[in-house]
């Protein structure tokens, strides 16, 4: 009898603290499986950010540093510059990366830090109870945009990958989704490519993952995945924004 699927050794046995059906769990799995498959669990340092995934340091079966809100890429820089042969990745939400931490993330990319950023875009501040994120959709009701986000008052959802595509130091950049099994498999491929590039020292890699927050969206987990497909994806099209591929990493 063969094992077709079992929990990866890249995750510890600690039960995940996420709400039922939250996509964080799926993305955790994909990252952890990737690290296991690439055989680098023992060489990896995870940088946990502040958000629902703050406890990811408990979940990823690797050494981990918990970073201040928004500063994961700065912390990763501190680790990676001293340990250039290790694998270093950050795991950050849209509040963490796109709002408070955008400066640190942009400059890590611009300095060509050879790290991988897993960017969980769930259009909301999950951890703090559902406030508007810079990525929240127009019309989306959140606890700080109670009648829906309005372009004229709050601005439009920020397009992180589009902006980062303009940064020379970026080696690989793709936006993926986990809204259905096919997309989950795609996401896994993208994550694997990012880490592979890091191992090849190609530069900064980032995967933006469209993810769900069923609790703060006020939906069942299943409906939440549908919402990703129907509402988020049109605003945040899935796309490879940059792939330095085998070319010289200029």
């Amino acid at each position, binding site marked *: 009898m063969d094992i077709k699927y079992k929990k990866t050794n890249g995750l510890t046995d600690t*039960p995940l*603290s996420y709400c039922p059906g939250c996509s964080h769990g799926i993305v955790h799995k994909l990252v952890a499986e990737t690290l296991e498959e690439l055989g680098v669990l023992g060489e990896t340092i995870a940088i946990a950010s502040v958000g629902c995934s703050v406890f990811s340091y408990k979940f990823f079966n690797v050494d981990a540093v918990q970073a201040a809100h928004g500063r994961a890429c700065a912390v990763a820089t501190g680790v990676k510059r001293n340990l250039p042969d290790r694998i270093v990745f950050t795991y950050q939400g849209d509040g963490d990366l796109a709002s408070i931490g955008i400066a640190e993330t942009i400059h890590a990319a611009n300095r060509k830090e050879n790290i991988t950023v897993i960017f969980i875009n769930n259009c909301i501040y999950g*951890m703090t109870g559902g406030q508007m994120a810079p990525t929240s959709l127009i019309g989306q009701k959140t606890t700080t945009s109670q009648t829906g986000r309005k372009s004229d008052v709050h601005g439009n959802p920020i397009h992180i990958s589009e902006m980062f595509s303009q940064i020379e130091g970026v080696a690989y950049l793709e936006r993926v989704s986990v809204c259905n099994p096919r997309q989950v498999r795609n996401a896994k491929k993208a994550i694997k490519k990012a880490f592979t590039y890091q191992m090849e020292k190609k530069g900064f890699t980032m995967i933006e993952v469209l993810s769900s927050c069923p609790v703060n969206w006020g939906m069942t987990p299943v409906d939440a995945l549908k919402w990703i497909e129907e509402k988020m994806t049109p605003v945040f099209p899935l796309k490879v924004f940059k792939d330095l591929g085998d070319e010289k990493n200029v």
Partner: protein
Amino acid sequence: MCKAINIRVAGFGGQGVMMTGQLMAYCATYENMFSLWVPSYGPETRGGTANCSVIVSTKTIASPVFMNADVLIAFNLPSLTKYMNMVVDTGVILYNSSMIKDPVIKQGIKAFGIPVNDIAIGLGTIQVSNMVMLGAYMEFSGLFSDQTVEKVLEKFLGEKKAHLLGINKQAIQAGREAMIAVKE
């Protein structure tokens, strides 16, 4: 009532723990008593449990925290186990006997099992099991008139959920009855 009553309410997230506590505090305010409600909050509540404390008093309330509960309302077993020891000897425990079977209660403390889930399901929706519990406690304590709780509920539910007032009131009455039944 001559002194403050310290109440702890606890259970799974989704069992209406916070609402139960808040309604008590609202009722007390409505009846011109002093009241105070303290929730557990934040990620602590993620992944399963919720609890809050309520203080009801005829005088201003000094300390908002207490180690000694006069009342524990436990909606599930982990909550009962976790908080049982804070109940004073003269205190009382109300527990959800739909989910907690034959609990071992600290010696000498009054405890009443109310099958609030079953009663609520009997009324048509498990959602009101917390109201059943509230009714049971009202019956036990003699606190808050039916009128008070109705007014408070009306405001709490607001226009959008006004249609739920009836079923909530029914649940409270059912709770009262259940308490009368177990008390005997």
